[in-house]
């Protein structure tokens, strides 16, 4: 007879980046939370690349931090190199990326979890979700582990990452394990299928790790971190994290590398058909790159430290599932790696995940009340993508128990909103990676203003302190007042002004101009103009940055705000959750099928579903109006 070990409010299945954020959010909101993992030692593991952030992923981390998540704080404590990417481009695409000390990262996150009230960590494989019939739907009542123990709870967040029925493959070798040889979870899929969940099978991969002592760095280009490090977290004092950084190294593949790969393609499980899962296009294996881009003479290889307590180096750009002997031969053609000793082989990993269109934008399953999910289990890829979903799922699981309205960030509020909206409304057949081009309002969704966009929402969630909240209110006002002052302040073309303009290669003034007009000139900045601005108040750096950007790009920002206003109107037209679109006469058949499948929350979402035409949307609006009047 199964025994009830304990009763909890919320159970989190998995302790990766999604699981950690979900567990912390739920516990911090006061709910008794239990987090299951197949190995406590693998909490917050980084099984692939040793970095956090990067283009658009850096945005996700900043947004998560603004809402009250943990990832930004942990990487600020454990980074060993940091860089602001795209600094020469516009502010919207500046993005932070830090090299992590993987072990430190894991240890730090584990320590935070272990010291959070209401949070229990349990090493066990969850094999079943327990549900009951409730108001013609199923609803969560608990989970069961491999030993037969059941844990009663009212909400579950699934964050199983790449562990479900995982299989690691290189050459003819195929091991039924999760990443790094960790135990896979082999039972949960059956329980999900029994509960009507539709599963996908995805694939990803990782390169070899090579012993630092066997690498000749003199043949590579050294890559340094930034001189002044910008923290990820809005709560981290920048001065506190300036430290000695380690270098990464750049080298290249060459024709010989490619010849070896081509000669051994028949031994690659990717091409022989041994791998059935769908892999991501944005991080292709080196054999993929060589096949897809035959004209490219060389590919970049980034050699990055896995930490400061280890000699292992990550060989970025050369993930592979070729056999061991081919891997050796291939890596050793690369300048600096001629004598490379492999510590861990490169491999591809296949795993079960879900078709995320079964989820609402709240990350709750449409058909199973109280069941939430996040991370790679939802068909995404990347630590950052996982973390933000885990966080949103954790918060919404808690809100569900609080009886509060669940929170959905929309596409105009955050990259998090874009990510989740894409997952739940678009046909997604590969692990989904965040990209800056996916955010149509990206000029507004900058990493520098994530706090202004989201702190208040974090406060409403209950994960942002009163003090942090008050600061944002003050900051908003300070920015507004300063812009207003600059717009009113006129200066004439006196000698001092003209000399200043000449020095900065800027057109001289013929008549008076406001300071705001001068900030708008591409060649001038708010900071530099302090020289001409005697009454300038003493404002913190982050306020100054906002003043500069908001004035400089005012035209573009205004245009995007107008687009957002249109978007919001459609987004605010809610659609009934259990609406049967078959009852709407005149909708085209394809639209009916798609709408019944996706069950969009509002007209805006409906309009983004492929196969739903503008005419269908018109018909739908007329129909809704009709229902409203009846």
């Amino acid at each position, binding site marked *: 007879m199964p025994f009830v070990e304990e009763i909890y409010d919320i159970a989190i299945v998995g302790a990766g980046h999604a699981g950690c954020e979900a567990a912390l959010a739920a516990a911090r909101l006061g709910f008794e939370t239990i987090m299951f993992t197949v190995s406590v030692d693998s909490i917050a593991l980084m099984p692939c690349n040793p970095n956090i952030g990067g283009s658009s992923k850096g945005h996700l981390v900043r947004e998560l931090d603004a809402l009250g998540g943990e990832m930004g704080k942990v990487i600020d404590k454990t980074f060993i190199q940091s860089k602001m990417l795209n600094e020469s*481009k*516009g502010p*919207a695409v500046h993005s932070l990326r830090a090299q992590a000390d993987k072990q430190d990262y894991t240890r730090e996150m584990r320590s935070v979890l272990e010291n959070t009230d209401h949070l229990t960590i349990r090493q066990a494989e969850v094999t079943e979700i327990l549900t009951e019939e409730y108001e013609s739907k199923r609803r969560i009542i608990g989970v069961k582990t491999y030993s037969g123990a059941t844990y009663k709870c009212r909400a579950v967040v699934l964050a199983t990452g790449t562990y479900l029925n995982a299989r690691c493959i290189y050459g003819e070798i195929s091991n039924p394990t999760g990443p790094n040889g960790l135990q896979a979870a082999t039972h949960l899929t059956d329980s999900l299928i029994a509960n009507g969940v539709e599963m996908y099978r995805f694939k990803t991969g990782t390169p070899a790790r090579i012993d630092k002592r066997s690498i000749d760095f003199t043949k590579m280009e050294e890559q340094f971190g930034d001189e002044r490090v910008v923290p990820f977290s809005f709560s981290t004092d920048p001065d506190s994290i300036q430290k000695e950084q380690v270098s990464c190294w750049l080298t290249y593949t060459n024709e010989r590398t490619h010849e070896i790969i081509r000669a051994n393609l028949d031994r690659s499980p990717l091409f022989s058909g041994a791998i059935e899962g769908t892999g991501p296009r*944005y991080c292709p294996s080196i054999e993929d*790159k060589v096949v*897809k881009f035959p004209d490219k003479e060389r590919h970049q290889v980034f050699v990055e430290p896995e930490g400061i307590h280890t000699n292992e180096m990550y060989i970025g750009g050369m993930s592979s599932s070729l056999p061991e002997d081919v891997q050796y031969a291939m890596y050793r053609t690369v300048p600096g790696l001629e004598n490379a000793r492999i510590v861990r082989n490169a491999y591809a990993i296949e795993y079960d995940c879900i078709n995320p269109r079964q989820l609402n934008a709240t990350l709750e399953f449409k058909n199973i009340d109280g069941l939430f999910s996040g991370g790679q289990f939802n068909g995404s890829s990347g630590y950052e993508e996982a973390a933000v979903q885990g966080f949103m799922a954790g918060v919404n699981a808690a809100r569900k128990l609080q009886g509060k309205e669940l929170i959905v960030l929309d596409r105009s509020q955050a990259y998090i909103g874009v990510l989740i909206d894409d997952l739940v409304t678009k046909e997604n057949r590969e692990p989904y990676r965040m990209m*800056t*081009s996916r955010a149509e309002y990206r000029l507004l969704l900058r990493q520098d203003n994530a706090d202004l966009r989201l702190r208040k929402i974090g406060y409403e969630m209950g994960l942002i302190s009163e003090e942090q909240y008050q600061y944002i209110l003050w900051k908003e006002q300070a920015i507004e007042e300063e812009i207003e002052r600059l717009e009113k302040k006129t200066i004439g073309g006196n000698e001092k002004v003209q000399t200043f303009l000449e020095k900065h290669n800027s057109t001289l003034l013929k008549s008076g101009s406001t300071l705001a007009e001068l900030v708008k000139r591409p060649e001038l900045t708010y900071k530099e103009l302090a020289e001409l601005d005697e009454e300038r108040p003493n404002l913190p750096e982050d306020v100054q940055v906002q003043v500069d950007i908001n004035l400089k790009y005012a035209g573009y920002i205004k245009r995007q705000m107008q687009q957002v206003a249109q978007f919001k109107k459609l987004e605010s037209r809610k659609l009934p959750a259990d609406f049967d679109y078959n009852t709407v006469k*005149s909708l085209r058949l394809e639209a009916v099928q798609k709408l019944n499948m996706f069950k969009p929350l509002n007209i805006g979402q409906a309009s983004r579903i492929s196969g739903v035409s503008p005419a269908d949307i018109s018909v739908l609006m007329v129909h809704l109006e009709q229902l409203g009047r009846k």
Partner: protein
Amino acid sequence: MVNTDTIAAIATAMGNSGIGIVRISGDEAVEIADRIFKLKGGKEKLADKKSHTIHYGFICDGEEVIDEVLVMLMKGPRSFTAEDTVEIDCHGGMLVTRRILEAVLKAGARLADPGEFTKRAFLNGRIDLSQAEAVIDVINAKNEYALKSSVGQLRGSVSKRIKDLRDKIIFEIAFIESALDDPEHISLDGYGEKLMGVVEDMGVELCKLIKSSSNGRVVSEGVKTVILGKPNAGKSSLMNVLVGEDRAIVTDIAGTTRDILEEHIYLQGISLNVVDTAGIRDTDDVVEKIGVTRAMSAAEDADLIIYVVDGSRDLDENDYQIMEFIKNRKAVVLLNKSDLDQVVSVEEIMEKSGHAVIAISAKKESGIDKLEEEIKSLFYEGEIDFNDQVMITNVRHAQALREAYDSVLMVKRSVEDGMPEDFYSIDLMNAYEKLGLIIGESVEDDLVNEIFSKFCMGK
């Protein structure tokens, strides 16, 4: 109210009505009308006027007066859509009505979607609930029609040119975006200069397309007109006179026009889509035989046939065949070569063809005015049917082309101003979307697919 942006469209059927009405509805309706409407003698604005009043004045495009009009002002909610509404009553005729609509769009309105006025009227409570089904039907019917004419009428060559342009644009966006997403693999150094050349070419191509769209060449708009006549009767000369350029090959040797030529001309505000065919006659020449067959089949579904008779030569079998063919069709008969000695009998032609005869000389360009008058009267008396949806499509396309062109100019300016590269892709994407409207393709996942297929990304 869901959409409060301001929309405009032509509210009357085009062609066979003496008055054309352009309707504007939405928050900015009055403001937009004021931008192009000059009240008679006044410095006053419509905005200052009372609701439900009529005003006399002129619609202007810049300095140029397009038409003398009456403007009706109806402020919401007391209008069909319950929104602020302005109706411009003009002198009708396709060209003028269309130009006024274009001026309204230029001044800031958006071309209404099919059935959109009705939809707004319903959503704003102006139409009774019992009519909801009918409203849906209107929207559906109009959309279907618009969709058919929008893509179906697009000429193959134009469609291909727009596709090529879009391919070029999306390639550049994908390149920029790949570099932004993966700055360590792909560099944008010196890219602005290269892009400058590319957008300049795009600008030139868009200009050409805009020009041809204002000539009505983007879609096959207008009255399908076929010129028939035996070889060397002067069909091509007539065509050249009408078109005003040496478009058809004209020689004295019978049978020199072997391909079907097609031209768009505006005649007294009527758009004619003129097809010139090889002369109809029995022939053993294989090439010409194909031409003749085509001529007959082209004439088969024409809205209007212009039959050219050579007045200086006797009627032959070809002429009798044609006269029989046009007997119960809409046609104009021209007796050409009036400058030479006439040998045919006007009475016989009138009797056999069932149509009046106009004497002209294509060579001397005499009598052409009478032809224009005749076509005009046929048109306005409703004898010629005409697909007005096609014209709307053309306006829509022209608008999209102009917007795409503006976006391309913005890219140029951004490069010149030294803006960061990520700003280029904002305007490039706008241009891409606008061009997509013309060929009926949306953006969807084009960009992401292009990035992955053209550029090697990632770790």
